[in-house]
């Protein structure tokens, strides 16, 4: 069982979402309030353990008085605000953003995106067969994880998790500019020559599968990856005394990857190299 600290009590702000009055604690984002009110707003770059970067722009909503649409994930709710989540204008932007994304990168391993593409009637093909795509080969330069930037939507969550928000390793950053911007380590070197400490926290937060366990990558390539056949078991890491929670993903009686519960108040889903990748001894592969 995980224990979530309650924190200090906060004032409630009153405002409206789609014309209905709502109350949300001070400091909440529009997205928090929408979710409490049961509104479904798509998000991609918003990570539950990270400060939102609002780079993907699929969560945009209309706020009365604002010239442009505003990102629900990062805009704080204000008293008296009039938010509209499902207008033609907001839906149009979400549709185009989904089209732009799906036409430039491979979203095949992004959860939920297929549903949204259907819901918003997005047609990523309409930019024609010559529309520029990333078309990059996966980078396989170590035995622990694979970087497939063809699936990268540049949401910055891996950069934030590696940098000052969690790991403080600063091994990766965004390099280049515009459509040529890419996640990269220093000097575009292989991961093995970089500052990476292989904590795998970037994989934990990646929303699209651009970063994945080598085990998952290999099984997908072999066609043996089957999420429906996997069980998840949360346990305590045995390596040291911190007591991090591990969630073991097991398929055919083999651990295929390790994640960590984000609601754990100590680790918030973060692990170290041993907890994340050091499970082979369990399986006695010889």
């Amino acid at each position, binding site marked *: 069982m995980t224990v979530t600290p309650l924190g200090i009590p906060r004032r409630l702000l009153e405002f409206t979402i789609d014309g209905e009055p709502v109350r949300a604690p001070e400091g909440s984002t529009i997205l928090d309030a929408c979710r409490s009110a049961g509104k479904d707003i798509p998000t991609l770059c918003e990570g539950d353990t990270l400060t939102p970067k*609002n*780079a*993907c*722009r*699929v969560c*945009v909503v209309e706020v009365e008085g604002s010239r*442009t*649409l505003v*990102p629900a994930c*990062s805009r704080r709710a204000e008293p008296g605000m009039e938010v509209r989540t499902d207008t033609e*204008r907001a839906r*149009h*932007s979400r*549709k*185009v*953003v989904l089209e*732009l*994304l799906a*036409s*430039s990168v491979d979203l095949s391993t992004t959860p939920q995106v297929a549903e949204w593409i259907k819901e918003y009637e997005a047609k990523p093909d*309409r*930019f*024609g067969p*010559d*529309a*520029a795509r990333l078309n990059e080969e996966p980078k396989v330069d170590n035995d622990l994880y694979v970087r497939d930037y063809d699936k990268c*939507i*540049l949401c*910055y969550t891996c950069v934030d998790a590696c*940098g000052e928000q969690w790991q*403080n*390793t*600063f*091994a*990766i*950053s*965004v*390099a*280049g*500019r*515009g*459509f*040529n*911007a890419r996640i*990269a*380590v*220093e*000097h*575009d*070197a292989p991961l093995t*020559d*970089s*500052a990476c400490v292989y904590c795998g926290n970037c994989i934990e937060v990646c929303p699209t599968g651009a970063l994945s366990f080598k085990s998952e990558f290999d099984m997908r390539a072999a066609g043996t990856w089957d999420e429906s056949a996997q069980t998840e078991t949360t346990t305590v890491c045995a390596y040291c005394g911190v007591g991090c929670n591990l969630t073991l993903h097991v398929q055919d009686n083999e651990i295929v990857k390790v994640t960590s519960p984000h609601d754990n108040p100590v680790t918030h889903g973060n692990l170290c190299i041993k907890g994340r990748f050091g499970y082979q001894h369990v399986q006695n592969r010889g």
Partner: protein
Amino acid sequence: MDLHFGDSKPTDDERAAVDALLGPPESSWEGADRSDADLRWARGGREARDRRDLLLPGLHAINDRVGWISDGALDYLCRRLTVPPAEAYGVATFYAMFSVKPRPATVLHVCTDLACAAAGASELCAGIEAGLGPGVHVERSPCLGLCERAPAALAIRAGDPVRTAVSAPATVREAVLAATAPDSAPEEPSAALAVPQAGSSDLILLSRVGVVDPASLDDYRAHGGYTALRRAFELGPAGVIREVTDSGLVGRGGAAFPTGRKWQATASQPDHPHYVVCNADESEPGTFKDRVIMEGDPYALIESMTIAAYATGAHKGYLYLRGEYPRALRRLEHALVQTRARGLLGDDVLGQGYAFDIEIRRGAGAYICGEETALFNSIEGYRGEPRSKPPFPVEKGLFGKPTVENNVETLVNVLPILKMGAPAYAAIGTARSTGPKLFCVSGTVDRPGIYELPFGATLGELLELAGVRDGLRAVLLGGAAGGFVRADEMDIPLTFEGTREAGTTLGSGVVMAFDDTVPLPRLLLRIAEFFRDESCGQCVPCRVGTVRQEEALHRIAERTGAAAADDIALLREVGRAMRDASICGLGQTAWNAVESAIDRLGAYE
């Protein structure tokens, strides 16, 4: 933070370039050879990390000395500043003027943007490339801000010191000469040549350009310099803000926000220190007014910044100057030395017990850094990506502190406001657009240059002054982020409200004329290409949208009517989402010019 450095080492030259900026390293913790003492104590951490804002100057130091930034040089700079190499690599690869791959010491930037394209830049480029050997790297560049002398080229030769030469209007021979022998290139013509009205008694903002010696502080004072600052000290900070508010001055950078309100909001913030930032990153294609002021009347800008700082309670100012303006940099650096020596900057400005100083920071080729929050990130040593607002700069700006940011033209307006008083200033122009306004006129006109007119003059009157030629097809107002108007719309009044009513914008004051010899579709492609190149890449609508727009324009470059209809509909849909959902003004305005060309000019009918 446990930093990891590879084993790449800087060359002696690279080390010297960094040390010339930062001083020699004090211990092995920041890049010196290891001594026994270094093993007993550690230095760095927060103290060193606080110097992160020196990253951009450090990258400039290396690039200026060697011409590109090697792994070893970058790692050494990172050690000195305790910056993670991956982040510094992200910063170095953000700016167009830096290279992390080897290249020749001399780079020749040839402008291929709107005014230069209309003046034959592509033929010029081809000729230059044919005429130059492998020792020079030719770079096709966005607007160099020399539109009145199009086509333009700028040569930069790395070394100690770095040398620069401008060729404009450029011929193949002169541009090749500037690149191969920048030391012996002829001196650029005086800034006054960019001001066709120079010397006229009607001028207020440009009255000193071409009249004073830009190198002489005495000459500036003899022409009324520093009387506005004296007046400011008499009025006190609140009095200055009152005058600026009453004058009706609004920002001239394009957003037209009331300056007095911005100053008041900054001045009243309880958090300290406050900063003043001058946005001199004039990168809007077709804009060159700030360059002419900085080259022709540099002390006026310094005096204006001092007044802004005094009014808002700031003791430190940053002047963020675009990297493509070497002469403005030299003139301003000289002016800063002079004003410090004479007590007009420093601990005790004008003997009033008020401390203020200005630091110049050079941009490195990124249009987006003209966006106010991207500019803060750039100064702080991060990638020049815009921040989302709120919080606004008056509350959390540079280094997270209350900051007032104004562009050059806005700031120099403060001098006449204080000299003539708010009511007299407000009487100039119209009721809602007060004061004089600078316009950068270029393209197919006889006398391109900067014109100063009171708000309210019509587009036709301005173009008449500049010598509009027969066969005018279209006028681009406000630069690449602005919009086109037709040749029969000459009675549009040049005011904020007048252009708004006419469904267009004044933007930064660009007025670019194109006659019917200029191929419109190619011009629109150039605009699309510009935004694709200059998008920072942070948000999806802009990063991918600018690419999709350029692709669509390529597809319809030779098509009209029904054949283009599908792609025009696509452009509209993408453009609408970019305007609505992009983080900053770049993505929000990237579609304006093309849309106006389709709607007002019937570009693809």
